[in-house]
């Protein structure tokens, strides 16, 4: 959970891109980095040790500032999707304020999506996140590939969860911004609920929307 540092007038918000291996989590971050205004977006960092992928994750920091001089640093992380790297996945998920679940639309990946999602639920429990109230957005990526699960089927399966559902082709940059806007929105509302981000620091939904809105598709 984010904490407000009143002395430094600063809030750090952590958003984690979760999902099975090779579903396009890193691509989402790289696309965002390309689309974002350089003044509000930091350096894209990929942590990958050769031959040992246990430390594999990406980080993209960005910043929102209020007229009152408060700043919100938003850090986007990706987890390693490989089943074996559960400990790293768990560590990266810790303290998340919002999660984007990037699913692979290919029919062959249906089982991996399912396993990764239940792994997310299990790890959320392990690191003390209230999964039922955790801001969560589902992205079905790779809509540009053949042999994918139809939108109708995806809708049918996921609509009952009530979670925001976005279709994307991250390599083409499609749906990346919508996904980001959706998770920013959900996370802001949750933080507003929990710690009155607006009343105490002057953050508004508009400020958050602008960050995503600045991105041109």
């Amino acid at each position, binding site marked *: 959970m984010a904490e407000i540092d009143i002395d430094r007038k600063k809030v750090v918000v*952590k958003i984690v891109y979760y999902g099975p291996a090779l579903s396009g989590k890193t691509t989402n971050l790289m696309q965002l980095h390309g689309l974002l205004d350089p003044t509000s977006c930091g*350096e894209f960092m990929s942590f990958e040790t050769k031959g040992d992928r246990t430390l594999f994750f990406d980080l993209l920091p960005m910043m929102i500032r209020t007229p009152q001089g408060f700043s919100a*640093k938003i850090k986007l992380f990706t987890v390693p999707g490989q089943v074996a790297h559960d400990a790293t996945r768990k560590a990266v998920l810790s303290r998340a304020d919002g999660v984007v679940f990037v699913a692979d639309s290919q029919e062959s990946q249906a089982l991996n999506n399912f396993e990764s999602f239940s792994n997310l639920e299990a790890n959320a429990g392990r690191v003390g996140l209230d999964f039922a109230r955790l801001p969560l957005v589902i992205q079905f990526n790779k809509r540009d590939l053949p042999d994918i699960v139809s939108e109708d089927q995806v809708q049918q399966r996921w609509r009952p969860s009530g979670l925001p559902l976005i279709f994307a082709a991250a390599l083409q940059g499609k749906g990346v911004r919508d996904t980001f806007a959706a998770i920013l929105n959900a996370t802001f509302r949750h933080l507003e609920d929990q710690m009155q981000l607006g009343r105490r620091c002057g953050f508004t939904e508009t400020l958050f929307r602008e960050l995503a809105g600045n991105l041109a598709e």
Partner: protein
Amino acid sequence: MVTETEHTLATEAFDREYGLTDLLDPKRLAVVFRQVEAGGLLRLVICHPDGKPYFPKGAPASSSSTDELPQGATLPLRHELETVGILQVRGAADLAPEARRSVAGFARAVLEGLMMERYRYLMSARLHGEVVEDSYLRLQQKAEALAKSEARYKGLAARLEKEVARQAEEIRETQARLMERAQLAAIGQLAAGMAHEINNPMGFISSNLNTLEQYTRELAPLLTDARRFWRFIEGCPAPLEGRDDVGRQAAALEEAACRIDLDYLLVDLPELLRESREGSERIRTIVANLKSFAQPGIETRTTLDLNRCLEATLQVLSPNMAGRVTAACRLADALPEVLGSESQLNQAFMNVILNAVQASPAGGEIRLHTVRSGDAVEVQIADDGPGIPEAHHNRVFEPFYTTREVGDGCGLGLTLTYNTIQQHGGTIRIQNPPAGGTTVVIRLPIDGGR
């Protein structure tokens, strides 16, 4: 370069915010600054965002500095979109502002590079720490779970050992019982075989004895008449004419008759034959019993009220008891019916009760008791007799084992009883109650051992 202990690496969150003191290591700064300051012209100072000097330690704060900083001498140090520190290029007051800016810019690039490198290192190291810690915890949990299951298996193994010992004992006992039964069966087979062999000669012996009795009955009066005759001849004063040796011959016959004691012989002969016939009759009975022993009669089974069976058996035996012994019944109400052969079971009860009657002293009492015991009915038959020594408890079921006078029983009664009870899936055992006498306990399963 590593300033943290392993402990802080493992316990601090890898994704926390890092500041100037985290990202710029004074030892490293000293190396870089020494090179820049080697010419003696310039001095580099790094301050916190609020202006307090960070490195070198004890550098005068810029605000209190005597010499005002020239233009281009100050640059912010940025990390992740934030200013985390301020770089100042001091000294060489006459240096052209462009040159100073170049130096400052170069120094900032080097320092921000160092900071980024340090940032990556710290995040990697701490995340690694978290992962290792987590893996360690999981291993520990696994070890605990293993220890628990090991303890459980140990417990199971101990119980299993006991269970195996118990079952081994059970098997041993069953084996002993089977051996005993097999022995009894073998003896029974042998006896039955012998009975068959005995039966054949017994047939003609009985038949011959009958004929012999008949011959004896015919011969005896003839011999008596003949004796009377030769006595008459012997007693004649004048022997018959021309036959003076007749008297002598009659005297010789009389002498021979006296020698063999003909009178007694004629009396004893029918008696001997009668006894022989009785003896052969007894052999016939024994042989018949032996045969039924080897081939138990095939009989349909019905559901039986054992109370009624016992009462009927007592009725049949009442002549044998005839005021010498009394019977006391304590029979359970609503006794479940037992599947079995009525005549075989009645015969079995009769053998046991008869034994009890014969063992009882005059004025003794036979006590019959029935009771339900789980899925079985228990019949107890107790007497006030002398009791059976413990050592004989198993032997009483052996064929031909008897303690009675010869002729008073052939020793097959309890053997037949034992077989009948076995065929009904039941058990029979002898008890010596402390009060004396003998109690025979027969236990019969309700389903007849099916």
